[in-house]
């Protein structure tokens, strides 16, 4: 293996998504996270009337994104995807609650605090789009 290759492999396995555990981490987190969200009186009304099964796939898309994994959602997609919820009153407090549930999920899975902080930072970058501002 050449130095260049070695270097490349090192950087590739250094993305947050890889360090957190990739798809396996998403699969481990999805049910725990979604159960917390549905149990959280502050935000669960936004998840009424969404089909559980379809929702599980969407939660995986959300987690993949938050973990810095591969996705092709644009800011515009995030705006459109949450516009219905903004009409229902989605605001900063709900956004914070989702991020809080995500943090608690990762703590439950023994993900180190530094990585959780990186996940939270990624979520922050979507705040204005999610809240349609």
């Amino acid at each position: 293996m050449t130095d260049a290759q070695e270097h490349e492999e090192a950087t590739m396995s250094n993305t947050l998504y890889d360090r957190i555990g990739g798809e396996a981490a998403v699969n481990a987190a999805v049910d725990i996270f979604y159960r917390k969200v549905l149990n959280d009186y502050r935000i669960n009304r936004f998840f009424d009337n969404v089909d559980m099964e379809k929702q599980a796939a969407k939660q995986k898309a959300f987690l993949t994104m938050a973990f810095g994994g591969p996705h092709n959602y644009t800011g515009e997609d995030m705006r459109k995807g949450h516009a219905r919820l903004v009409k229902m009153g989605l605001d900063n407090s709900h956004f914070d609650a989702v991020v809080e549930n995500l943090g608690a999920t990762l703590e439950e899975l023994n993900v180190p605090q530094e990585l959780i902080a990186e996940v939270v930072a990624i979520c922050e970058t979507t705040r204005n789009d999610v809240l349609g501002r």
Partner: protein
Amino acid sequence: MFYVEHYGVSFNGSIMYKLTIEEQTYTCQPDETVLDTLLREEVNISYACKKGTCHSCMVRSLDTIPPAAAQVGLKNTLKNHQHFLACLCHPEQDMVIKLPDASEFYTEGTVVVNEMLNRNTLLLIIAFKDAFEFNAGQFVNLQRADGLTRSYSIANTPQESNTLEFHIRRLPHGKFSAWLHDDIKVGDTIAVSEARGHCFYLPERREQGILLIGTGTGLAPLAGILTDALAHGHTGDIYLFHGSREVEDLYRIDEMRELAKQHSNFHYVPCLSGSHVPEGFMQGRANDVALATMADLKGWRVFLCGHPDMVNQAKRMTFLKGAASADIYADAFLVTPTG
């Protein structure tokens, strides 16, 4: 340097695979997904997110096992039947594919039993010349000569000769159920589609607890799943909660009680939501009684059939009680009031 364009090999040397749908063959270019190819060829296929999230473009491989990456996130029963997401599939060999909305193949069957299970539910058994391929718990479309079509769940298991059993409730103003109840006789023929649906038993994790909740003729697929699980020697506890308003609308009560006597791991709980609740029945709706009875559903497999509101609510509640989302099965077809 020169290139030889060989059939199936692109200029840069990567292999191109053939996709066959009904009589048509399409070539999947290198780097294309199955969805890309079909869209380029203007094949009519539903799709939306192109990211594996929405499952709109789910299709089925009829010959080879699809690449694992194209089955990520699908339920075990769908994987088992070689369903995959066209948008995530880079073929690894030639594939024969079936689109979800492809024209259905109907087989003629002959009615061999038609008798009442209770005051409004008909037991219909249809026999076929050859073995009918299905999993207990799946559903088929029945079709009348004029084209009127309805979905009904299969209530028996494939081990029982070449027959399909159905439980058909007479619905108010239901054209199709009235036809089955009033006009169909033993010896008549009915057109039956291929079996569909992913709500069925897979003989794995035999020690796993199984929770079955059904209302009305929602018992049909659950009875099939139950028989199948017991026939496969399932060792985990199996709970069946069957509900209706009045005791006259339940059926197979004695048979289920008998089965529970024979199998110590099977528990039958008939539920009545009306005000008159005789001895031996639980008061309340089947899903409420089930959730009050089961302390923790962590690690359980759950099957839900019946009224769509009950199914939706029970999906969420069993999930919150600990069942994994991948272990909750419910069929997607709705019981239309005009049925």
